[in-house]
């Protein structure tokens, strides 16, 4: 379970205070206008922003003292998930050992992960020889290997076409369900939330304006959600 308890973040002249609970193994979508603070929440959970103790708990553990690499979290960004000068296999292998010193069995795991995201033949290619969707699938393969209980998605599929985005969402959901992962996803597309998320939250002006199970969330919109959906 992820519990965010009055997380307070101040950046220059902007600030946010957020509380949110996401059940273990569930899928939570964050929607809302640009600049509302959606990505900031993910960055705080992943440890890229300083925050005080007693604000973010994952499975009861306080995140504040942990460095990004030590948190039970994998995060996918919109781009630059892969190092452009390394092959796909090397990029995925970083999920097992960031020094890239792998033994034979570990390399086998890399190829298994690539199989799971249907990139079997692409292991030795450089990322730029892949399509946008393939690149994000490779990043997903790395996230699988890191075996972290929480997966944070910061609009990793935003640049893909509608059909491809749907496929990727399905893939992520299936994999997460299989591995028992909890997902928080930032998206600009409310239909993504409807499609994949158990729970949806509307982030606005540095606060959560509405939150609930996705079905009731969209069925009973508050004024804020109506204004956002147009």
């Amino acid at each position, binding site marked *: 379970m992820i519990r965010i308890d009055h997380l307070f973040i101040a950046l220059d002249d902007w600030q946010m205070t957020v509380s949110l609970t996401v059940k273990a193994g569930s899928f939570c979508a964050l929607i809302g206008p640009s600049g509302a603070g959606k990505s900031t929440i993910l960055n705080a959970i992943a440890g890229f922003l300083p925050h005080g103790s007693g604000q973010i708990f994952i499975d009861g553990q306080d995140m504040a*003292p942990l460095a990004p*690499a030590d948190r039970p*979290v994998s995060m996918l960004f919109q781009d630059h998930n892969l190092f452009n000068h390394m092959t796909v296999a090397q990029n995925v292998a970083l999920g097992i050992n960031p*020094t890239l010193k792998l033994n034979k069995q570990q390399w086998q795991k890399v190829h298994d992960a690539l199989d799971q995201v249907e990139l079997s033949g692409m292991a030795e290619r450089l990322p730029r020889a892949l399509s946008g969707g393939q690149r994000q699938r490779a990043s997903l393969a790395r996230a699988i290997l890191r075996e972290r209980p929480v997966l944070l998605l910061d609009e990793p599929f935003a640049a893909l076409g509608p059909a491809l985005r749907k496929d990727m969402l399905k893939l992520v959901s299936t994999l997460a369900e299989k591995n028992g992962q909890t997902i928080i996803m930032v998206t600009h597309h409310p239909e993504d939330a409807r499609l994949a998320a158990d729970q949806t939250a509307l982030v606005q002006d540095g606060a959560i304006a509405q939150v609930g199970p996705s079905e009731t969330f969209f069925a009973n919109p508050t004024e804020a959600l109506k204004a956002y959906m147009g």
Partner: protein
Amino acid sequence: MIRQANHKAFANGIPALFAFLAPLTLVVASIGALWSMAAPTLGETSSVGSALSSLFSDVYVMRAVRFTLMQAALSAILSALLAIPLARALATRNFPGKAAILSLFGAPFILPVIVAILGLLAIWGKNGPMHTLATGIGISGFSIYGLPGILLAHVFFNLPLATRILLQGWLAIPAEQWRLAAQLGMSSKAIARHIEWPMLKERLPGVLAIIFLLCATSFTVVLALGGGPKATTIELAIYQAIRYDFDLERAALLACLQIILCAGLAVISRLITQDHDTGESLGGAIHRSDRTSRASRWVDWSVIILALAFLAMPLMAAFLRGVNGLIMNPFDAAALLPAALRSIAVAMGACLVMGLISLPLAQLSIHLKGKTRRLVELPGFAIMVAPPIALGAGLFILLHQHIPIDRLALPLTSLLNGLQAVPFALILLTPAMGQIKRDYGKQIQQLGMNSKTAIRLVHWPLMRKPIGLSLGITAALSIGDLGVIALFGSPTAPTLPLYLYQQMGAYHMDQAYGSGLILTLVAFAFFLIFDKGLAGRDKN
């Protein structure tokens, strides 16, 4: 609050501190030595007014100051004025080989200055074709020595630089503006006023400032082509005071003046130069409807051909006479080889100094935010403010009583050449490091790479290209250096440029051209070894 996991690959405090303090300490110590030497000569009175008046009454000093400013101003104006039609022609016309020519425009930067001067002498000197031509059409008395030659050489070096900056300006004008101009039926005059002049108004001050600064501290050109009482710059006067007269007070006084002048110029140029995109997109041409007439085509082509002739002829002459010199004269390996080895040793030292200072500084600057970030510019600024001969004079005064200076000639040349390369290297390294942090900083943290792993897997593969280029430029500049080495070097153990200069002084011109060719080959070879060799196969 937890401390944000800060990823520092190259700078773990101590290297950064060293890189920050070493140039500053050196410059401050040197200025201190200069000032304590110069102050007593400004009269017993401590009043600034009387000190200044005694300074301004020194004819010799004032003549050097005046000449420095005048030749720098004329060089800057001439280069910029000639660059305007050339950049416009290059922006408008497309032709095969244009890209090659534009990359050749970067060559004067790594070509040893003394070799370019040999080339200019071959074309514009007493027996050169241009001199013959001038005499033929009745212009007599043209001499490449003195002001005309200095201007000629400065335009030769700076016209390509000015042209590249202005060409970027022309290409940065949005295509929509040209289409709009065509739709409105604007004449060339109207286009010049409404589209081109606003761009020039933005870029010309920066162009003039940088060329002025480069020419105000130019040494080798003035050493080779000027030098008489009428054509001496401050930089050369410092050298003459130390080497010919051993008048350290005068040298210190001149060096102080030079540093004050450079500080003023650097501040002014920082204020008026705007940051432009440093993207190297010089390809392509703009489509303008007003310059399609036969006449305007003729004008553009003539400008391009004349400029190319002006820039290429000296290079070709230096090359041909170099080949000829090597064939006609026995190869003096006993003198050339040790000289070449000394030059290479100096260059390797300079590369080391440059790397030890630039890499941590670049790393430091991307980790700092806001005002502290400007602090990191301080060492680079100190280096700009103290040009090599002035800085060298300070070190000379500091050291000469304790140790025979010519024993330190090579290390000091390495040190000063390496320092001179730092501002250039920072321009290449800082954006590259910043990009790594922006693109991959979070990944490196999330994956838990330690510094060593991050350097091996991320920083080195992505930085080797800019690092290779910085090292290449440093090596080429320092192999071709005839500034610091002239100040400190011993005639019996010369570097390659100094040996060449000795040959010129002895009127062994054929041999000098031969040495010039070897010098150029060595400089370019080391540039390529670093730039291409280190950069490796391009994976991106």
